[in-house]
């Protein structure tokens, strides 16, 4: 991993940060040019999986990321159908990661974009994210592994990206099948072509560079390598510059777009996301990319996130902008962290006994 890799990651980060600001100017919610968790949640709503009327829209960005990563991985020989590495555990971890993200109100990518917009609540989230990754690294250093993935059929590997294609065709041909928010964040979106194009570009760039929000911090903890974190830094720099140029930079804790100032819950929500992401081997964006490359394990994690998003809104676990989580969300995020810790400890103990 050298200067060339860092350069490519910086370019990828700059593309993502700039695209996020442009998508916001074109209609996406504030500091939400991209948010993997929020957009999976919106897509779950569009598919009638939950009934929160303000967060329903089949986000073309998600479909674009999957298709971009799938296409470039097929062209460059990275498409390798594989799976069988603790799929049910991955589903559950993905579920909990989504609960944590929706208590914080954003995935790690949106956390960086929120920082670039001046939202200091995201700084609290970043501290929780780092703490979660640090805990995850302790387990990795002591033997944690979800097990080897084995080869799968081409059909198995292609099932996830093919589903994204089918979803997009249905979205264009039969929009009446889907729910569309008439108010709230789900009603705010960039034109379909711009959103899809931005998603495709991010999918291609993230696949080639292995960009991962959790991986950058994990590599610093585990092997003192600063390559992946350069993409994280570039996203922040590009969104900061873009927001200042667009006049949308406003520093502070209060009245930030789609956020809340409940520090403890911002911290714990992102702690769950950081720990879960290390256990899965990557952040929600990275799970999308790996699923598009043929990993049915990562596809299970994405499906777990989608189920988690549906549960978050059906059982009032997600935070409300401005006021934060209710009692259900607070219990869910603490229970989620306990489950992650128990699963990580159990798996680590089993692996150490095998060794």
């Amino acid at each position, binding site marked *: 991993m050298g200067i060339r*890799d860092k350069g490519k990651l910086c370019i990828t980060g700059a593309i993502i940060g700039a695209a996020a600001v442009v998508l916001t100017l074109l209609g996406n919610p504030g500091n939400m040019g991209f948010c993997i968790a929020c957009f999976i949640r919106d897509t779950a709503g569009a598919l009638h999986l939950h009934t929160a009327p303000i967060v329903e829209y089949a986000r073309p960005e998600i479909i674009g990321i999957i298709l971009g990563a799938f296409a470039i991985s097929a062209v460059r020989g990275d498409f390798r159908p594989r799976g069988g590495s603790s799929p049910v555990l991955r589903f559950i971890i993905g579920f909990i990661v989504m609960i944590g993200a929706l208590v914080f109100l954003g995935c790690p990518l949106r956390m960086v974009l929120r920082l670039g917009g001046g939202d200091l609540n995201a700084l609290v989230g970043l501290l929780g994210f780092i703490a979660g990754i640090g805990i995850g690294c302790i387990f*990795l250093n002591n033997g944690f592994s979800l097990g080897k993935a084995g080869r799968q059929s081409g059909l198995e590997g292609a099932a996830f990206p093919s589903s994204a294609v089918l979803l997009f065709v249905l979205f264009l041909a039969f929009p009446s099948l889907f729910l569309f928010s008439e108010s709230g964040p789900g009603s705010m979106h960039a034109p379909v072509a711009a959103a899809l194009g931005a998603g495709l570009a991010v999918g291609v760039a993230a696949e080639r560079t292995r960009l991962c929000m959790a991986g950058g911090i994990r*590599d610093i903890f*585990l092997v003192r390598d600063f390559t992946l974190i350069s993409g994280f830094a570039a996203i922040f720099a590009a969104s900061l510059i873009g927001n200042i140029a667009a006049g949308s930079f406003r520093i502070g804790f209060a009245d930030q777009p789609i956020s809340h100032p409940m520090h403890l819950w911002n911290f714990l929500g992102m702690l769950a996301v950081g720990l879960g992401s290390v256990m899965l081997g*990557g952040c929600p964006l990275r799970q999308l990319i790996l699923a598009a490359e043929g990993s049915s394990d990562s596809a299970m994690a994405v499906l777990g996130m989608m189920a988690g998003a549906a549960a978050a809104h059906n059982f009032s676990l997600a935070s409300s902008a401005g006021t934060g989580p209710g009692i259900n969300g607070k219990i869910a995020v603490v229970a989620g962290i306990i489950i992650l810790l128990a699963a990580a400890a159990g798996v680590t103990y089993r692996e150490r006994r095998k060794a």
Partner: protein
Amino acid sequence: MLDPADIKVATFHSHYGALMFHKRMGGDSVIRPVPRSLSSSCGSAVFFTSAFNPSLADENTEAVYVKDGDGWREIWRK
């Protein structure tokens, strides 16, 4: 500092596998992320310059490569 002319890299199924291999190899090795040209995954790899002895591998070891020009040539696979 490893001699780039004679460098080898071992890849693994888990970070712990890399850590254990690194311990068995001793001082003549470093743990780094897997080179992008070898894998689209972002796991840990061990770079080393001494001769590769297959007895150092275990069930977590996936493959070993040697530097070959600008790329890598596989010399061992589990």
